[in-house]
């Protein structure tokens, strides 16, 4: 135990763009720690000279003909957007960091 600490959880959550609620951090740290402790048993397995499996099918590259096919109309793609303007997704201001 003690594999992952509160500050690690906060750091990883920030990488994942999740702001954790204060009440949740302590509990998560304990739960993730016991999960990682359980996962440690993988160290017992001899994986010297074993190829990693990222995918079970014997395929490497999948090519298709470079044909133009119909794509979704812009209106339809934007239909679900929580913020939009014209043909664009609208997000909070990115430049300067200042708000209106």
């Amino acid at each position: 135990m003690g594999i992952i600490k509160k500050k690690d959880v906060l750091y990883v959550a920030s990488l994942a763009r999740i702001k954790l609620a204060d009440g949740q951090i302590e509990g998560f740290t304990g739960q993730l720690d016991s999960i990682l402790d359980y996962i440690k048993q993988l160290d017992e397995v001899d994986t010297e000279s074993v190829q990693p499996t990222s995918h079970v099918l014997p395929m490497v590259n999948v090519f298709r003909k470079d044909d133009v096919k119909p794509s979704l109309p812009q209106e339809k793609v934007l239909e679900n957007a929580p913020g939009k303007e014209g043909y664009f997704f609208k997000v909070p201001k990115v430049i300067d960091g200042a708000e209106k």
Partner: protein
Amino acid sequence: MKDPKKPYTLTAHQISNLIREKKISISALLDSLLKRIDDVDKRVKGFVSVDKKSLKERAKDLESEPKSVGKLYGIPVTIKDNICVEGEPTTCGSKILAGFRPPYNATVVERLRGEGALLLGKANMDEFAFGSSCETSCYGPTHNPWDLDRIPGGSSGGSAATVAADETICALGSDTGGSIRQPAALCGVVGFKPTYGRVSRYGLIAFASSLDQIGPLTKDVRDSALLLNVIAGFDPKDSTSAEIDVPDYTTFLSKDLKGLRIGIPKEYFVKGVDKEVNEAVWKSIKKMKNLGATYEEISLPHTKYAVATYYIVAPAEASSNLERFDGVQYGYRSPEKDKTDSTPPLLRMYNSTRRDGFGAEAKRRIILGTYSLSSGYYDAYYLKAQKVRTRIKEDFDRVFKDYDCIVTPTSPTPAFKLGERLDDPLNMYLSDIFTISANLAGIPAISIPCGFTSKGLPIGLQIIGKPFEEATLLRAAYAYEQSTEWHLMKPEIKRG
């Protein structure tokens, strides 16, 4: 059995016959199901959306074009809420996809509709399929029709429960670590996870892309074959779907098992497996022997590492797949305007949208996955798990040189009580201990009913097979099923 007064109790193949013989209309069938849903879904809570009006229109449309009779003409199918249906709510049981209506159909949806199926509604699920109990859904849990105080299993809990409670004729689910088979076992129905690549994943909202597979949940094995006939096959829109011919699976359904060589892995019959589950599975194995099969004990030595491997690989892929839910293109966006927070506005929007939009288990998995992929930990966790995954796959490759299939319990225990494991994620993860390996190895596996506990809870038998040999599994499952009556039992839909 074939009581047209209660058509909702029937199977797809029985209904197809009744429709063909004009003994029932699609509208009458639909009405009986909608009535049934009204009667029992208040207790089961298997559906998250049912659009009665458009269903009635669709039923009329189907009746008016009898020339285009398809393989599933008039058959109602429940769709798990992570499979895209154009214009209809598709939320993965998550607040972060609130209000999302996909602009296109999943390939399986196109195929079902193309064969005349009636998509009955969307089924509840663990949020983003993260769970084994259907309790992490933002809509609240689905209840097990055999005992309403218990979980239906997960993550395809809504699909399994609606089939078990006769609220639908059949359903589609998705299986990343057991999410079709475990709820099928706990609800007493048939659940089939095909080979990775057998069924197109286009339009299935991704959880772990190297493990996810869509499959049927049905009242019997023949229906499973019928649905697989329709959904299986190559799809140019899914680059991981396999270009391998799809046989007519119904032609493999025979009543004897002569020549079938079964392996019984000793690692699946260990301490921790419920005594009644163990007994029911052994009885089934002996029954399969009486039907002509032979069995021998085998070893899959890396079984004990499957859960640990999975909980690195699956959350890693999930953390990457779920990056897209950030309040920009679809779904929920947090309105938060906290002026004391000095984070730049866009970042603040991401952070609070994902804080408020994802439930606890989704956050746990995203953080776990991000951790194992982050600099300094990648080799120790992710790469190591991918190598152990190879070892697990090699175990199966070796066994399948001498055996046609492997028989095990689907779940080590029957359905547990609601809330029992919710605060203990590791214990929850261990409920998938017997189903995860098939996903890691990419091979097909089916769960069929094989008995009941003394408390009246269903027990599931798992049959695991070689890649793309779904037909062998269906043959074995059908012969066993037809020699028993487990699949004909119906729940009373009350508390235990």
